């Protein structure tokens, strides 16, 4: 399951390199593959997602980017780190965190003479799967993406933070991620 999901993420990123058109000025495809680390709670169970991967693939229309995102990570109940807690409350089964989402990214500023340094915000709707739950959520993100043109393609990197909010009682479960990776586009 993990291998299949990883292959899907990689294939999606490679598939992004299919559109044509100059960077920024016209519709074109792009994608990224990132390293991700996060904190993912589920009710009173606090989990840690690491190591993990984050991938996105999208179509850029000027400042707007329509995108699909995928996440895959090892998820561990943090109570396993606490011997005292483990003796009282056996930890839940650790396993895989996975998420798929669909949303949009908006470039709030494009800096440098070639507008290659971009500051973005993003949001999406998604569904996440944990060993102890599966649930819908809303994602928000903020970060930096840089791209350099190499012939017909662009190659760059990005750094961002992501917040996933899943409804729960008495308070929503808020997951936090940091992503750092490479981007590819045309």
């Amino acid at each position, binding site marked *: 399951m993990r291998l299949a999901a990883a292959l899907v993420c990689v294939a999606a990123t490679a598939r992004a390199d299919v559109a044509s058109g100059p960077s920024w000025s016209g519709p074109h495809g792009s994608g990224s593959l990132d390293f991700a680390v996060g904190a993912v709670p589920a009710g009173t169970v606090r989990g840690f997602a690491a190591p993990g991967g984050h991938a996105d693939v999208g179509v850029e229309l000027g400042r707007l980017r329509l995108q699909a995102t995928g996440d895959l990570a090892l998820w561990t109940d943090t109570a396993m780190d606490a011997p005292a807690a483990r003796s009282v409350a056996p930890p839940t089964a650790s396993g895989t965190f996975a998420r798929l989402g669909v949303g949009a990214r908006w470039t709030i500023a494009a800096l440098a003479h070639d507008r290659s*340094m971009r500051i973005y915000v993003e949001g999406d709707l998604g569904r996440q799967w944990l060993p102890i739950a599966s649930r819908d959520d809303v994602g928000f993100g903020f970060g930096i993406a840089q791209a350099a043109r190499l012939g017909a393609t662009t190659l760059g990197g990005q750094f961002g933070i992501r917040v996933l909010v899943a409804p729960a009682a008495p308070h929503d479960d808020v997951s936090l991620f940091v992503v750092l990776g490479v981007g590819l586009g045309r």
Partner: protein
Amino acid sequence: MKALVAVAMLAGAARADALLAGDPPPPPPAPPPTIVAPRPPLASDPFADRLTLTPAVGALFRSGDAMAVEASVTRTFDRAEVAASYSLASWSTDRVPRVGATIQRAGVEARYQALRKRVDDLTLDLCAAAGVGWEHVAPDAGSSVDLGDVSLGAVARMLPNIEHDRDRVWFGMEAELRVLIARDDTTLMLVWGFPIGR
């Protein structure tokens, strides 16, 4: 033809006489009119008055520990700085099983660049910081708690101008060690991120 040669020789002789006599040279021709306005000169201190945004990741230690993410905006005025930040942390403790919380914090800081070193297009800053903040702590079970805090910290920053002489675009790295002093607890917070801006 002979007449033309004679006139040219006379004119050349007259020009030589004028130069020997010390007359000022004729003014240079006027530059062609510009269609695009020239770029305004950079400020006398090219590092002054920066405005940067910073996505950051960090850790928070308060009777337990937490992963944190933070978004902040910083404005500099020579050595003085003002920064506003919003942080989110996922906190849990080893002491009591199944106890955790989501912490939100909004804060404002005044900073002073106590030490700084400029190397070409790069500035290395070390700032002392002090500020105030508001925290919203939402436990996994139970009601939320709001509390204010006072923060003291130190910021280390490496910030180059990646556009060099062409323009001002700052993109670098920054780390802050911050102590949050609240009514019932003291928190140590470490954040690290990439500031970017103009």
